[in-house]
Protein backbone atom coordinates (compact mmCIF):
# COMPACT_ATOMS: atom_id res chain seq x y z
CA UNK A 1 0.00 0.00 0.00
CA UNK A 2 1.52 3.31 -1.05
CA UNK A 3 -1.32 5.78 -0.70
CA UNK A 4 -4.00 5.30 1.90
CA UNK A 5 -6.64 8.01 2.48
CA UNK A 6 -9.21 7.44 5.25
CA UNK A 7 -12.27 9.68 5.51
CA UNK A 8 -10.55 12.78 4.26
CA UNK A 9 -12.43 16.04 4.55
CA UNK A 10 -11.23 19.34 3.24
CA UNK A 11 -13.10 22.53 3.96
CA UNK A 12 -11.97 25.88 2.65
CA UNK A 13 -12.61 28.90 4.81
CA UNK A 14 -13.61 28.85 8.47
CA UNK A 15 -15.39 25.60 9.31
CA UNK A 16 -19.03 26.04 10.22
CA UNK A 17 -19.37 29.59 8.94
CA UNK A 18 -21.30 30.75 5.93
CA UNK A 19 -18.14 31.22 3.88
CA UNK A 20 -16.93 27.66 4.41
CA UNK A 21 -16.79 25.57 1.24
CA UNK A 22 -16.48 21.79 1.54
CA UNK A 23 -14.17 20.48 -1.21
CA UNK A 24 -13.69 16.89 -0.13
CA UNK A 25 -16.30 14.87 1.68
CA UNK A 26 -15.24 11.69 3.49
CA UNK A 27 -12.94 10.56 0.75
CA UNK A 28 -11.24 7.20 1.21
CA UNK A 29 -8.83 5.80 -1.33
CA UNK A 30 -6.16 3.14 -1.46
CA UNK A 31 -3.54 2.81 -4.13
CA UNK A 32 -1.20 -0.16 -4.25
CA UNK A 33 2.24 -0.35 -5.74
CA UNK A 34 2.16 -0.76 -9.54
CA UNK A 35 -1.41 0.45 -9.91
CA UNK A 36 -2.60 2.86 -12.58
CA UNK A 37 -5.49 4.87 -11.20
CA UNK A 38 -7.56 7.61 -12.82
CA UNK A 39 -9.74 10.02 -10.89
CA UNK A 40 -12.26 11.72 -13.09
CA UNK A 41 -14.45 14.68 -12.37
CA UNK A 42 -15.74 17.92 -13.79
CA UNK A 43 -14.21 21.22 -12.78
CA UNK A 44 -15.21 22.29 -9.29
CA UNK A 45 -15.73 18.69 -8.21
CA UNK A 46 -12.79 18.78 -5.81
CA UNK A 47 -10.40 16.78 -7.94
CA UNK A 48 -7.63 19.39 -7.75
CA UNK A 49 -8.00 19.51 -4.00
CA UNK A 50 -7.72 15.74 -3.89
CA UNK A 51 -4.63 15.85 -6.05
CA UNK A 52 -3.07 18.49 -3.74
CA UNK A 53 -3.78 16.31 -0.73
CA UNK A 54 -2.39 13.16 -2.34
CA UNK A 55 0.61 15.14 -3.56
CA UNK A 56 1.37 16.37 -0.03
CA UNK A 57 0.98 19.96 -1.18
CA UNK A 58 -2.00 20.56 1.08
CA UNK A 59 -3.21 19.10 4.35
CA UNK A 60 -6.82 17.96 4.77
CA UNK A 61 -9.07 19.42 7.46
CA UNK A 62 -9.72 15.99 8.92
CA UNK A 63 -9.12 12.35 8.19
CA UNK A 64 -6.04 10.18 7.90
CA UNK A 65 -3.45 10.01 5.19
CA UNK A 66 -0.63 7.49 5.11
CA UNK A 67 1.99 7.64 2.40
CA UNK A 68 3.71 4.28 2.66
CA UNK A 69 3.94 4.21 6.45
CA UNK A 70 4.30 7.94 7.01
CA UNK A 71 1.48 9.81 8.69
CA UNK A 72 1.40 12.77 6.31
CA UNK A 73 -0.72 14.91 8.60
CA UNK A 74 2.01 14.88 11.20
CA UNK A 75 4.79 15.87 8.83
CA UNK A 76 6.42 19.29 9.06
CA UNK A 77 6.76 21.59 6.06
CA UNK A 78 10.36 20.53 5.46
CA UNK A 79 9.50 16.81 5.70
CA UNK A 80 6.64 17.31 3.24
CA UNK A 81 9.15 18.90 0.83
CA UNK A 82 11.49 15.95 1.19
CA UNK A 83 8.63 13.49 0.71
CA UNK A 84 7.59 15.26 -2.52
CA UNK A 85 11.18 15.37 -3.67
CA UNK A 86 11.95 11.69 -3.19
CA UNK A 87 8.61 9.89 -3.45
CA UNK A 88 6.25 11.84 -5.72
CA UNK A 89 6.63 12.87 -9.33
CA UNK A 90 4.36 15.64 -10.58
CA UNK A 91 3.05 16.12 -14.11
CA UNK A 92 0.93 19.23 -14.73
CA UNK A 93 -1.41 20.29 -17.50
CA UNK A 94 0.76 23.26 -18.44
CA UNK A 95 4.14 21.49 -18.11
CA UNK A 96 5.83 24.20 -15.98
CA UNK A 97 9.15 23.92 -17.74
CA UNK A 98 11.78 26.62 -17.46
CA UNK A 99 12.11 28.17 -20.88
CA UNK A 100 15.71 29.33 -20.54
CA UNK A 101 16.89 25.84 -19.64
CA UNK A 102 17.35 22.92 -22.01
CA UNK A 103 15.67 19.54 -21.55
CA UNK A 104 18.52 18.04 -19.52
CA UNK A 105 18.62 21.01 -17.15
CA UNK A 106 14.85 20.93 -16.69
CA UNK A 107 14.83 17.22 -15.97
CA UNK A 108 17.84 17.44 -13.63
CA UNK A 109 16.20 20.09 -11.43
CA UNK A 110 14.81 17.72 -8.75
CA UNK A 111 18.16 15.90 -8.66
CA UNK A 112 19.94 19.13 -7.81
CA UNK A 113 17.59 19.61 -4.84
CA UNK A 114 18.37 16.06 -3.81
CA UNK A 115 22.08 16.88 -3.79
CA UNK A 116 23.06 14.58 -6.66
CA UNK A 117 26.45 15.57 -8.15
CA UNK A 118 26.42 17.31 -11.54
CA UNK A 119 27.81 14.48 -13.68
CA UNK A 120 25.39 12.00 -12.14
CA UNK A 121 22.49 14.45 -12.60
CA UNK A 122 23.23 14.73 -16.28
CA UNK A 123 23.54 10.99 -16.73
CA UNK A 124 20.23 10.29 -14.99
CA UNK A 125 18.46 13.13 -16.81
CA UNK A 126 19.50 11.69 -20.17
CA UNK A 127 18.41 8.26 -19.00
CA UNK A 128 14.95 9.60 -18.03
CA UNK A 129 14.64 11.49 -21.32
CA UNK A 130 15.51 8.28 -23.15
CA UNK A 131 12.75 6.46 -21.25
CA UNK A 132 10.18 8.99 -22.48
CA UNK A 133 11.51 8.76 -26.04
CA UNK A 134 13.36 12.07 -26.26
CA UNK A 135 16.93 10.77 -26.50
CA UNK A 136 17.47 12.91 -29.60
CA UNK A 137 16.14 16.14 -28.05
CA UNK A 138 18.13 16.36 -24.82
CA UNK A 139 19.73 19.71 -25.64
CA UNK A 140 16.54 21.36 -26.90
CA UNK A 141 14.93 24.19 -25.01
CA UNK A 142 11.15 24.02 -24.35
CA UNK A 143 10.40 26.68 -26.99
CA UNK A 144 12.05 24.40 -29.57
CA UNK A 145 9.76 21.49 -28.68
CA UNK A 146 6.15 20.64 -29.52
CA UNK A 147 3.48 20.42 -26.81
CA UNK A 148 3.67 16.64 -26.66
CA UNK A 149 7.45 16.75 -26.41
CA UNK A 150 7.26 19.36 -23.64
CA UNK A 151 4.97 17.07 -21.67
CA UNK A 152 7.44 14.24 -22.19
CA UNK A 153 10.20 16.42 -20.72
CA UNK A 154 7.90 17.15 -17.76
CA UNK A 155 7.27 13.42 -17.34
CA UNK A 156 11.00 12.71 -17.50
CA UNK A 157 11.46 15.32 -14.74
CA UNK A 158 8.75 13.58 -12.70
CA UNK A 159 10.34 10.12 -12.96
CA UNK A 160 14.01 11.10 -12.76
CA UNK A 161 14.14 10.71 -8.98
CA UNK A 162 12.47 7.25 -9.19
CA UNK A 163 9.36 8.31 -7.25
CA UNK A 164 6.97 5.87 -5.61
CA UNK A 165 4.02 7.60 -7.30
CA UNK A 166 3.63 9.57 -10.50
CA UNK A 167 0.90 12.13 -9.95
CA UNK A 168 -0.53 13.59 -13.15
CA UNK A 169 -3.00 16.50 -13.22
CA UNK A 170 -4.75 16.75 -16.60
CA UNK A 171 -1.60 15.57 -18.40
CA UNK A 172 -3.24 15.82 -21.82
CA UNK A 173 -5.30 18.94 -21.16
CA UNK A 174 -3.12 21.21 -23.21
CA UNK A 175 -2.38 18.74 -25.99
CA UNK A 176 -4.03 17.81 -29.26
CA UNK A 177 -5.61 14.38 -29.60
CA UNK A 178 -2.63 12.71 -31.24
CA UNK A 179 -0.07 13.98 -28.75
CA UNK A 180 -2.45 13.14 -25.92
CA UNK A 181 -2.77 9.59 -27.13
CA UNK A 182 1.01 9.32 -27.31
CA UNK A 183 1.30 10.50 -23.72
CA UNK A 184 -1.24 7.87 -22.68
CA UNK A 185 0.84 5.24 -24.43
CA UNK A 186 3.86 6.47 -22.54
CA UNK A 187 1.97 6.22 -19.23
CA UNK A 188 0.99 2.64 -20.04
CA UNK A 189 4.60 1.84 -20.83
CA UNK A 190 5.86 3.43 -17.61
CA UNK A 191 3.18 1.58 -15.65
CA UNK A 192 4.16 -1.69 -17.26
CA UNK A 193 7.73 -0.94 -16.16
CA UNK A 194 6.49 -0.69 -12.58
CA UNK A 195 5.64 2.99 -12.01
CA UNK A 196 2.56 3.63 -9.89
CA UNK A 197 0.42 6.30 -11.58
CA UNK A 198 -2.41 8.41 -10.23
CA UNK A 199 -3.98 10.55 -12.92
CA UNK A 200 -6.59 13.25 -12.51
CA UNK A 201 -8.65 14.29 -15.50
CA UNK A 202 -12.05 15.55 -16.59
CA UNK A 203 -11.91 13.47 -19.78
CA UNK A 204 -13.56 10.02 -19.63
CA UNK A 205 -11.62 8.84 -22.70
CA UNK A 206 -8.34 9.63 -21.03
CA UNK A 207 -9.49 8.12 -17.75
CA UNK A 208 -10.38 4.88 -19.53
CA UNK A 209 -6.67 4.24 -20.16
CA UNK A 210 -6.19 3.57 -16.46
CA UNK A 211 -6.61 0.14 -14.96
CA UNK A 212 -8.75 1.43 -12.14
CA UNK A 213 -11.02 4.46 -12.26
CA UNK A 214 -12.79 6.66 -9.77
CA UNK A 215 -15.23 9.52 -10.19
CA UNK A 216 -15.36 12.52 -7.94
CA UNK A 217 -18.54 14.55 -7.73
CA UNK A 218 -19.13 17.35 -5.24
CA UNK A 219 -16.24 16.17 -3.14
CA UNK A 220 -17.44 12.60 -2.94
CA UNK A 221 -15.43 9.78 -4.47
CA UNK A 222 -17.14 6.92 -6.34
CA UNK A 223 -15.75 3.76 -7.82
CA UNK A 224 -15.96 3.25 -11.58
CA UNK A 225 -16.67 5.60 -14.45
CA UNK A 226 -20.40 5.25 -14.98
CA UNK A 227 -22.74 6.12 -12.13
CA UNK A 228 -25.43 8.10 -13.83
CA UNK A 229 -27.79 8.77 -10.87
CA UNK A 230 -25.70 11.21 -8.85
CA UNK A 231 -24.21 12.75 -11.96
CA UNK A 232 -27.20 14.70 -13.04
CA UNK A 233 -27.39 16.61 -9.81
CA UNK A 234 -23.79 17.75 -9.98
Amino acid sequence: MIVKLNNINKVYGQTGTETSVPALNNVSLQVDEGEYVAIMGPSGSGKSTLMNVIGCLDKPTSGEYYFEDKDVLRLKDRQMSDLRLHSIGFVFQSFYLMNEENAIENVALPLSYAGVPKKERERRAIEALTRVGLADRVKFRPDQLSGGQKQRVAIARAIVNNPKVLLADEPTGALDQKSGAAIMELFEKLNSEGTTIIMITHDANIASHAKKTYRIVDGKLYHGLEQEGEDEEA
Partner: protein
Amino acid sequence: MLENLRLAFRGIWTHKLRSFLTMLGIIIGIAAIIAIVSTIEGTNQQIKQNLIGSGSNTVDIQLYQNDWPCDMSYNDPPYGVPQISDDVLKDIRSLDEVKSASKYTSRQIYDGVYYMNNSMNGGYVKGVETDYFETDNLTVKKGRLFTADEVADYKKVCVIEDSVATDLLNNEDPIGKVLEIGGDSYVVVGVVATRSTFEPTINSISDYETYMQDESGVVYIPISDWPISYRYDEPENILVRAVSTDDMTAAGKKSADILNGSINPTDDTIKYEATDLLEQAQQLQQLSSSTNSMLIWIAAISLLVGGIGVMNIMLVSVTERTAEIGLKKAIGARKGKIMAQFLTEAAVLTSMGGVLGVVSGIGLAQIISIMSGTPVAISWPAAFVAVAFSMVIGIVFGILPSHQAANLNPIDALRTN
Protein backbone atom coordinates in the same frame (compact mmCIF):
# COMPACT_ATOMS: atom_id res chain seq x y z
CA MET B 1 25.65 26.99 -4.88
CA LEU B 2 27.22 26.74 -8.35
CA GLU B 3 23.77 25.89 -9.67
CA ASN B 4 22.38 29.02 -8.00
CA LEU B 5 25.15 31.14 -9.52
CA ARG B 6 24.40 29.70 -12.94
CA LEU B 7 20.69 30.42 -12.53
CA ALA B 8 21.46 33.94 -11.26
CA PHE B 9 23.64 34.79 -14.27
CA ARG B 10 21.05 33.33 -16.60
CA GLY B 11 18.28 35.32 -14.96
CA ILE B 12 20.28 38.54 -15.17
CA TRP B 13 21.21 37.88 -18.77
CA THR B 14 17.60 37.14 -19.74
CA HIS B 15 16.56 40.59 -18.50
CA LYS B 16 19.65 42.50 -19.62
CA LEU B 17 18.15 45.98 -19.73
CA ARG B 18 16.21 45.62 -16.53
CA SER B 19 19.22 44.18 -14.71
CA PHE B 20 21.43 47.01 -15.93
CA LEU B 21 18.94 49.68 -14.86
CA THR B 22 18.63 48.00 -11.48
CA MET B 23 22.40 47.99 -11.11
CA LEU B 24 22.65 51.63 -12.11
CA GLY B 25 22.08 52.94 -8.59
CA ILE B 26 24.85 50.71 -7.26
CA ILE B 27 27.12 51.56 -10.20
CA ILE B 28 26.76 55.30 -9.65
CA GLY B 29 27.25 55.04 -5.89
CA ILE B 30 30.34 52.83 -6.13
CA ALA B 31 31.78 54.85 -9.03
CA ALA B 32 31.44 58.07 -7.02
CA ILE B 33 33.12 56.54 -3.99
CA ILE B 34 35.97 55.03 -5.99
CA ALA B 35 36.54 58.31 -7.84
CA ILE B 36 36.63 60.28 -4.59
CA VAL B 37 38.88 57.78 -2.81
CA SER B 38 41.25 57.65 -5.79
CA THR B 39 41.49 61.42 -5.84
CA ILE B 40 42.14 61.63 -2.09
CA GLU B 41 44.72 58.88 -2.36
CA GLY B 42 46.40 60.59 -5.31
CA THR B 43 46.50 63.96 -3.58
CA ASN B 44 47.97 62.35 -0.47
CA GLN B 45 50.66 60.57 -2.38
CA GLN B 46 51.50 63.79 -4.19
CA ILE B 47 51.78 65.73 -0.94
CA LYS B 48 53.99 63.07 0.56
CA GLN B 49 56.20 62.84 -2.50
CA ASN B 50 56.51 66.57 -2.91
CA LEU B 51 57.52 67.08 0.68
CA ILE B 52 59.64 64.06 1.32
CA GLY B 53 61.06 63.42 -2.09
CA SER B 54 61.42 59.95 -3.48
CA GLY B 55 62.45 58.06 -0.42
CA SER B 56 65.90 59.21 0.70
CA ASN B 57 64.29 59.45 4.18
CA THR B 58 66.58 62.19 5.44
CA VAL B 59 65.66 64.43 8.36
CA ASP B 60 67.48 67.70 8.86
CA ILE B 61 68.00 68.67 12.51
CA GLN B 62 68.95 72.31 12.72
CA LEU B 63 69.48 74.79 15.50
CA TYR B 64 66.52 77.16 15.77
CA GLN B 65 66.17 80.50 17.50
CA ASN B 66 62.65 81.87 17.91
CA ASP B 67 61.37 79.30 15.45
CA TRP B 68 63.79 80.37 12.74
CA PRO B 69 66.93 78.48 11.77
CA CYS B 70 70.04 80.13 13.28
CA ASP B 71 71.90 81.65 10.38
CA MET B 72 75.40 82.76 11.20
CA SER B 73 75.74 85.17 8.29
CA TYR B 74 74.85 88.20 10.38
CA ASN B 75 74.79 86.76 13.92
CA ASP B 76 77.30 85.69 16.51
CA PRO B 77 77.36 82.06 17.60
CA PRO B 78 74.92 81.65 20.49
CA TYR B 79 76.22 81.07 24.01
CA GLY B 80 75.99 77.64 25.51
CA VAL B 81 75.84 75.74 22.22
CA PRO B 82 79.02 73.69 21.93
CA GLN B 83 80.20 71.86 18.83
CA ILE B 84 78.61 68.45 18.45
CA SER B 85 80.86 65.93 20.19
CA ASP B 86 81.70 62.47 18.94
CA ASP B 87 79.78 61.01 21.90
CA VAL B 88 76.58 62.82 20.94
CA LEU B 89 76.98 61.70 17.35
CA LYS B 90 77.54 58.15 18.51
CA ASP B 91 74.34 58.26 20.62
CA ILE B 92 72.35 59.43 17.62
CA ARG B 93 73.85 56.80 15.34
CA SER B 94 72.94 54.06 17.81
CA LEU B 95 69.19 54.90 17.67
CA ASP B 96 67.10 52.08 16.18
CA GLU B 97 65.38 54.37 13.70
CA VAL B 98 68.63 55.93 12.46
CA LYS B 99 70.54 54.43 9.57
CA SER B 100 73.28 57.05 9.44
CA ALA B 101 73.92 60.55 10.75
CA SER B 102 76.42 63.21 9.82
CA LYS B 103 77.12 66.68 11.19
CA TYR B 104 77.56 69.78 9.08
CA THR B 105 77.74 73.54 9.21
CA SER B 106 75.92 75.63 6.70
CA ARG B 107 75.43 79.16 5.47
CA GLN B 108 73.01 80.60 3.04
CA ILE B 109 74.96 82.41 0.34
CA TYR B 110 74.09 85.97 -0.40
CA ASP B 111 77.49 86.86 -1.80
CA GLY B 112 80.85 85.25 -1.38
CA VAL B 113 81.28 82.36 -3.81
CA TYR B 114 83.02 83.37 -7.01
CA TYR B 115 84.47 81.87 -10.15
CA MET B 116 86.34 84.30 -12.40
CA ASN B 117 83.93 87.21 -12.67
CA ASN B 118 80.81 85.20 -11.80
CA SER B 119 79.27 85.11 -8.37
CA MET B 120 76.76 82.68 -6.99
CA ASN B 121 73.48 84.05 -5.73
CA GLY B 122 71.38 81.97 -3.41
CA GLY B 123 72.19 78.44 -2.44
CA TYR B 124 74.33 77.18 0.42
CA VAL B 125 77.88 76.49 1.45
CA LYS B 126 78.09 73.49 3.71
CA GLY B 127 81.02 72.28 5.77
CA VAL B 128 80.77 68.50 5.88
CA GLU B 129 82.50 65.31 6.93
CA THR B 130 83.18 62.74 4.23
CA ASP B 131 80.27 60.52 5.32
CA TYR B 132 77.79 63.36 4.72
CA PHE B 133 77.54 62.49 1.03
CA GLU B 134 76.42 58.97 1.76
CA THR B 135 73.91 60.07 4.40
CA ASP B 136 72.36 62.56 2.00
CA ASN B 137 72.32 59.95 -0.79
CA LEU B 138 74.42 62.13 -3.09
CA THR B 139 75.95 60.49 -6.13
CA VAL B 140 79.17 61.55 -7.84
CA LYS B 141 78.65 62.68 -11.41
CA LYS B 142 82.16 63.77 -12.17
CA GLY B 143 85.54 63.66 -10.38
CA ARG B 144 85.50 62.41 -6.78
CA LEU B 145 84.50 63.26 -3.22
CA PHE B 146 87.11 64.62 -0.86
CA THR B 147 88.85 62.12 1.41
CA ALA B 148 89.09 61.86 5.18
CA ASP B 149 92.80 62.73 4.91
CA GLU B 150 91.97 65.90 3.02
CA VAL B 151 89.51 66.84 5.77
CA ALA B 152 92.06 66.09 8.47
CA ASP B 153 94.77 68.07 6.65
CA TYR B 154 92.60 71.19 6.14
CA LYS B 155 92.93 70.86 2.36
CA LYS B 156 91.11 73.57 0.43
CA VAL B 157 89.06 71.29 -1.80
CA CYS B 158 85.38 71.41 -2.61
CA VAL B 159 82.61 69.36 -4.19
CA ILE B 160 79.89 71.20 -6.07
CA GLU B 161 76.39 70.36 -7.13
CA ASP B 162 75.57 69.91 -10.77
CA SER B 163 73.53 73.13 -10.90
CA VAL B 164 76.52 75.11 -9.57
CA ALA B 165 78.69 73.69 -12.34
CA THR B 166 76.12 74.80 -14.87
CA ASP B 167 75.38 78.27 -13.51
CA LEU B 168 78.62 79.42 -11.92
CA LEU B 169 81.14 77.76 -14.20
CA ASN B 170 79.20 78.26 -17.43
CA ASN B 171 79.35 74.56 -18.28
CA GLU B 172 83.16 74.54 -18.33
CA ASP B 173 84.75 71.32 -17.07
CA PRO B 174 84.72 72.14 -13.34
CA ILE B 175 87.35 69.64 -12.16
CA GLY B 176 90.52 71.47 -11.14
CA LYS B 177 88.94 74.93 -11.37
CA VAL B 178 89.45 77.26 -8.47
CA LEU B 179 86.53 78.88 -6.61
CA GLU B 180 86.73 81.69 -4.10
CA ILE B 181 84.76 80.72 -1.04
CA GLY B 182 84.66 83.00 2.00
CA GLY B 183 87.76 84.72 0.73
CA ASP B 184 89.82 81.54 0.31
CA SER B 185 90.65 79.56 -2.81
CA TYR B 186 89.21 76.06 -3.13
CA VAL B 187 89.92 73.54 -5.87
CA VAL B 188 86.90 71.72 -7.29
CA VAL B 189 87.50 67.94 -7.08
CA GLY B 190 84.07 66.60 -7.88
CA VAL B 191 80.50 67.21 -8.94
CA VAL B 192 77.48 65.56 -7.31
CA ALA B 193 73.98 65.29 -8.71
CA THR B 194 71.63 68.05 -7.65
CA ARG B 195 69.80 66.72 -4.65
CA SER B 196 66.26 67.83 -5.33
CA THR B 197 65.47 65.41 -8.11
CA PHE B 198 61.71 65.62 -7.80
CA GLU B 199 59.60 68.23 -9.54
CA PRO B 200 56.83 69.40 -7.25
CA THR B 201 53.51 70.06 -8.92
CA ILE B 202 52.75 73.72 -8.30
CA ASN B 203 49.06 74.55 -8.60
CA SER B 204 48.82 77.59 -6.37
CA ILE B 205 50.84 80.25 -4.60
CA SER B 206 50.64 78.28 -1.36
CA ASP B 207 52.08 75.25 -3.14
CA TYR B 208 54.90 77.45 -4.33
CA GLU B 209 55.62 78.68 -0.83
CA THR B 210 55.48 75.14 0.54
CA TYR B 211 57.79 73.55 -1.95
CA MET B 212 60.10 76.11 -3.48
CA GLN B 213 62.87 76.46 -0.98
CA ASP B 214 65.42 78.46 -2.84
CA GLU B 215 68.15 75.99 -3.58
CA SER B 216 70.09 77.12 -6.54
CA GLY B 217 72.93 74.85 -5.53
CA VAL B 218 75.23 73.71 -2.74
CA VAL B 219 79.00 73.91 -2.44
CA TYR B 220 80.53 71.40 -0.03
CA ILE B 221 83.86 72.11 1.72
CA PRO B 222 85.64 70.06 4.42
CA ILE B 223 84.16 70.93 7.84
CA SER B 224 87.71 71.38 9.12
CA ASP B 225 88.11 74.39 6.81
CA TRP B 226 85.00 76.13 8.17
CA PRO B 227 86.74 78.08 10.98
CA ILE B 228 89.38 79.22 8.48
CA SER B 229 87.02 80.55 5.82
CA TYR B 230 84.14 81.50 8.13
CA ARG B 231 84.27 81.48 11.93
CA TYR B 232 85.19 79.34 14.93
CA ASP B 233 82.53 77.76 17.09
CA GLU B 234 79.63 78.06 14.71
CA PRO B 235 76.85 75.75 15.82
CA GLU B 236 76.61 72.53 13.87
CA ASN B 237 73.54 70.76 12.49
CA ILE B 238 72.93 67.10 11.86
CA LEU B 239 71.51 65.29 8.87
CA VAL B 240 69.96 61.98 9.85
CA ARG B 241 68.91 59.23 7.52
CA ALA B 242 66.06 57.16 8.90
CA VAL B 243 65.72 53.42 8.38
CA SER B 244 62.37 53.91 6.63
CA THR B 245 59.97 56.71 5.72
CA ASP B 246 57.72 55.79 8.65
CA ASP B 247 60.69 56.09 11.04
CA MET B 248 61.47 59.65 9.96
CA THR B 249 59.40 61.34 12.67
CA ALA B 250 60.81 59.23 15.48
CA ALA B 251 64.38 59.46 14.19
CA GLY B 252 64.11 63.25 13.98
CA LYS B 253 62.51 63.71 17.42
CA LYS B 254 64.91 61.40 19.25
CA SER B 255 67.97 62.92 17.59
CA ALA B 256 66.78 66.42 18.44
CA ASP B 257 66.27 65.34 22.08
CA ILE B 258 69.82 64.02 22.31
CA LEU B 259 71.20 67.23 20.79
CA ASN B 260 69.13 69.44 23.09
CA GLY B 261 70.45 67.47 26.06
CA SER B 262 73.99 68.38 25.04
CA ILE B 263 73.48 72.16 24.91
CA ASN B 264 72.93 74.72 27.63
CA PRO B 265 71.98 77.97 25.95
CA THR B 266 71.31 81.17 27.90
CA ASP B 267 68.56 82.04 25.44
CA ASP B 268 65.93 79.36 25.94
CA THR B 269 64.32 79.91 22.54
CA ILE B 270 67.41 78.24 21.10
CA LYS B 271 66.95 74.57 20.49
CA TYR B 272 67.49 71.82 17.94
CA GLU B 273 64.45 70.93 15.92
CA ALA B 274 63.85 68.28 13.28
CA THR B 275 62.35 69.51 10.04
CA ASP B 276 59.65 66.87 10.15
CA LEU B 277 58.44 66.62 6.59
CA LEU B 278 56.43 63.49 7.27
CA GLU B 279 54.38 65.24 9.94
CA GLN B 280 53.76 68.18 7.64
CA ALA B 281 52.69 65.79 4.92
CA GLN B 282 50.31 63.99 7.26
CA GLN B 283 48.73 67.25 8.36
CA LEU B 284 48.11 68.25 4.78
CA GLN B 285 46.76 64.79 4.01
CA GLN B 286 44.32 64.95 6.90
CA LEU B 287 43.06 68.26 5.64
CA SER B 288 42.34 66.86 2.18
CA SER B 289 40.77 63.67 3.59
CA SER B 290 38.35 65.37 5.96
CA THR B 291 36.87 67.56 3.24
CA ASN B 292 36.36 64.51 1.05
CA SER B 293 34.91 62.17 3.65
CA MET B 294 31.72 64.26 3.49
CA LEU B 295 31.48 63.43 -0.20
CA ILE B 296 31.79 59.73 0.58
CA TRP B 297 28.77 59.93 2.87
CA ILE B 298 26.76 61.55 0.13
CA ALA B 299 27.78 58.80 -2.27
CA ALA B 300 26.78 56.21 0.33
CA ILE B 301 23.23 57.55 0.22
CA SER B 302 23.17 56.73 -3.48
CA LEU B 303 24.09 53.15 -2.56
CA LEU B 304 21.16 53.02 -0.17
CA VAL B 305 18.84 54.22 -2.93
CA GLY B 306 20.41 51.64 -5.25
CA GLY B 307 19.75 48.92 -2.69
CA ILE B 308 16.10 49.88 -2.45
CA GLY B 309 15.91 49.72 -6.25
CA VAL B 310 17.31 46.21 -6.15
CA MET B 311 14.74 45.18 -3.55
CA ASN B 312 11.95 46.62 -5.67
CA ILE B 313 13.01 44.78 -8.81
CA MET B 314 13.54 41.55 -6.92
CA LEU B 315 9.98 41.79 -5.59
CA VAL B 316 8.72 42.25 -9.15
CA SER B 317 10.83 39.30 -10.21
CA VAL B 318 9.35 37.10 -7.48
CA THR B 319 5.82 38.01 -8.59
CA GLU B 320 6.73 37.33 -12.20
CA ARG B 321 8.23 33.97 -11.42
CA THR B 322 5.48 32.76 -9.12
CA ALA B 323 4.83 29.71 -11.32
CA GLU B 324 8.51 28.79 -11.43
CA ILE B 325 8.79 29.09 -7.65
CA GLY B 326 5.57 27.12 -7.21
CA LEU B 327 6.83 24.32 -9.40
CA LYS B 328 10.16 24.19 -7.62
CA LYS B 329 8.45 23.98 -4.27
CA ALA B 330 6.02 21.34 -5.58
CA ILE B 331 8.78 19.07 -6.81
CA GLY B 332 10.43 19.24 -3.42
CA ALA B 333 12.68 22.30 -3.10
CA ARG B 334 12.96 23.28 0.53
CA LYS B 335 12.37 26.90 1.56
CA GLY B 336 16.09 27.39 2.10
CA LYS B 337 16.86 26.44 -1.50
CA ILE B 338 14.41 28.97 -2.91
CA MET B 339 15.69 31.62 -0.52
CA ALA B 340 19.30 30.88 -1.47
CA GLN B 341 18.46 31.13 -5.17
CA PHE B 342 16.96 34.61 -4.87
CA LEU B 343 19.60 35.85 -2.44
CA THR B 344 22.29 34.66 -4.82
CA GLU B 345 20.61 36.46 -7.67
CA ALA B 346 20.41 39.71 -5.70
CA ALA B 347 24.02 39.39 -4.54
CA VAL B 348 25.29 38.61 -8.05
CA LEU B 349 23.30 41.54 -9.44
CA THR B 350 24.74 44.05 -6.97
CA SER B 351 28.24 42.56 -7.14
CA MET B 352 28.20 43.03 -10.91
CA GLY B 353 27.01 46.57 -10.24
CA GLY B 354 29.94 46.93 -7.85
CA VAL B 355 32.48 45.73 -10.41
CA LEU B 356 31.03 48.01 -13.10
CA GLY B 357 31.01 50.82 -10.52
CA VAL B 358 34.69 50.30 -9.74
CA VAL B 359 35.55 50.31 -13.44
CA SER B 360 33.57 53.48 -14.14
CA GLY B 361 34.91 55.02 -10.92
CA ILE B 362 38.46 54.50 -12.13
CA GLY B 363 37.50 56.02 -15.48
CA LEU B 364 35.84 58.95 -13.72
CA ALA B 365 38.95 59.49 -11.57
CA GLN B 366 41.12 59.58 -14.71
CA ILE B 367 38.80 62.18 -16.26
CA ILE B 368 38.92 64.29 -13.07
CA SER B 369 42.68 63.96 -13.13
CA ILE B 370 42.93 65.15 -16.72
CA MET B 371 40.52 68.04 -16.17
CA SER B 372 41.74 69.36 -12.82
CA GLY B 373 45.35 68.23 -12.77
CA THR B 374 45.04 66.38 -9.47
CA PRO B 375 46.77 63.04 -9.59
CA VAL B 376 44.84 59.83 -8.91
CA ALA B 377 45.98 56.67 -7.23
CA ILE B 378 43.72 53.65 -7.61
CA SER B 379 43.33 52.00 -4.25
CA TRP B 380 42.81 48.27 -4.82
CA PRO B 381 41.82 47.56 -1.24
CA ALA B 382 39.11 50.23 -1.62
CA ALA B 383 37.97 48.63 -4.88
CA PHE B 384 37.79 45.23 -3.21
CA VAL B 385 35.85 46.62 -0.26
CA ALA B 386 33.48 48.39 -2.68
CA VAL B 387 32.62 45.15 -4.49
CA ALA B 388 32.25 43.24 -1.22
CA PHE B 389 30.03 46.02 0.12
CA SER B 390 27.85 45.89 -3.01
CA MET B 391 27.43 42.17 -2.44
CA VAL B 392 26.33 42.84 1.13
CA ILE B 393 23.81 45.40 -0.15
CA GLY B 394 22.39 42.73 -2.48
CA ILE B 395 22.06 40.24 0.36
CA VAL B 396 20.52 42.74 2.78
CA PHE B 397 18.02 44.14 0.30
CA GLY B 398 17.40 40.66 -1.16
CA ILE B 399 16.23 39.22 2.14
CA LEU B 400 12.67 40.51 1.94
CA PRO B 401 12.00 39.37 -1.67
CA SER B 402 13.71 36.00 -1.09
CA HIS B 403 11.73 35.44 2.05
CA GLN B 404 8.56 36.21 0.15
CA ALA B 405 9.52 33.75 -2.59
CA ALA B 406 10.44 31.00 -0.14
CA ASN B 407 7.11 31.30 1.66
CA LEU B 408 4.91 31.14 -1.43
CA ASN B 409 2.26 28.44 -1.16
CA PRO B 410 2.93 26.07 -4.08
CA ILE B 411 -0.78 25.50 -4.70
CA ASP B 412 -1.53 29.22 -5.02
CA ALA B 413 1.67 29.75 -6.98
CA LEU B 414 0.80 27.08 -9.53
CA ARG B 415 -2.79 28.25 -9.84
CA THR B 416 -1.74 31.75 -10.96
CA ASN B 417 -0.50 30.43 -14.27
